[in-house]
């Protein structure tokens, strides 16, 4: 069954892997909001980041700051989301909310204490 949410998350993941800023901005809604949870252990913006350009910049920072990390599409809390792993250890899990072809909200969990069940291998 075609799920527009899955398709949008796939396009977002593809843009992340290519580190394609323009493609990221295109899939993010103008009022996209990203909230990061670093748990005080990992550097993360302390306030939600708003707007396609700012969110794209944040996503690129998180994804491209880690050479050799692998980004996969996973079932996060019942919906398609993303997991970023480095040497099988999860470094970020991302939940997404979409409206049609656009991402409206990203929840980026970076707190290591919340990623233990996401490690592989």
């Amino acid at each position: 069954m075609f799920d527009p949410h899955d398709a949008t998350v796939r396009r977002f993941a593809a843009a992340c892997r290519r580190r394609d800023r323009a493609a990221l901005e295109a899939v993010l809604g103008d009022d996209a909001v990203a909230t990061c949870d670093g748990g005080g252990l990992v550097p993360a913006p302390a306030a939600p980041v708003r707007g396609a350009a700012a969110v794209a910049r944040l996503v690129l920072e998180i994804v491209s700051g880690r050479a050799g990390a692998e980004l996969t599409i996973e079932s996060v809390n019942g919906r398609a989301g993303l997991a970023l792993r480095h040497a099988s250890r999860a470094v970020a899990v991302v939940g997404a909310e979409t409206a049609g072809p656009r991402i409206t909200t990203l929840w980026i969990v970076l707190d290591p204490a919340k990623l233990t069940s996401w490690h592989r291998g």
Partner: protein
Amino acid sequence: MTDSGMGTELGDVASLDAATAAFTRVRPRLFGIAYRMLSSVAEAEDLVQEVWLRWQTYDRSTVTNPEAFLATTTTRLAINVLQSARKRRETYIGPWLPEPVDTGADPYLGAERGEALEFATLLLMEKLTPGERAAYVLREAFDYSYAQIADILSSTEAAVRQLVSRARKHLKGERHASVPAAEQRELLTTFLAAARSGDLAELERLFTPDVTNLSDGNGRKGVARRPLVGSARVAKFLQAISSWFWDDVDVRWVQANGQTSAVLRQNGSVYGLLTVSATSEGIDQVLWLVNAEKNKAVPA
């Protein structure tokens, strides 16, 4: 206690083998309840473990319906744990998000019972009372009848209907769309005047009841590290700083992240950026970006 609707024939659970089998059968459901109550995989697993310990040592000959008993124990423990978890979260550094759960690895949690599991819903449920949250989760995600929920919560059917209805209203009401750009600018201007003069009543009028004041100061001296929540608290905070903070501050307007922000300058150099976000209900967020590193791009 009424039957929980899963239609089991567990027979005598007095023996440990039968008790283990009964527990194993409902374990996924118990975890599903605990996770939705606590938004934490680790805390939910601890809680289910605690239920198992209690079940092992309980006088099970008195239990006619193990499923209902176990769901009840789980829910009541979760209500207690949630209360203390919320206290801990008040001192959390930066925004708090639920612990994500891998629903690909746990088909029961995701596919069969996907309700009340998404990040947006979990975050909204943080604003419900523990009782409202329990009633909502049992009703929406697990389809318990109002009578069953009343048994679990030691309440009445009428009271449970109230809890569920309040929870639904709250969750739906939270999804107000942001106001248009022109209105946001207008609200920011009014807000700034009230903040400068420390006008408590006007500030409270502008805010939604659960307005949040967030500062991104990256440990900068004098910058609040924790979010402040609630119109009275945020208004009092702004009134308290109004007597000194604004003395040498002048304001210019910029467009940042698609909305109007105020650039605050102190003695000719940029102190930070201040903005608000708002819905039709009023200002729901006051944001201070006073991280010197991040404001380098802001024209002085």
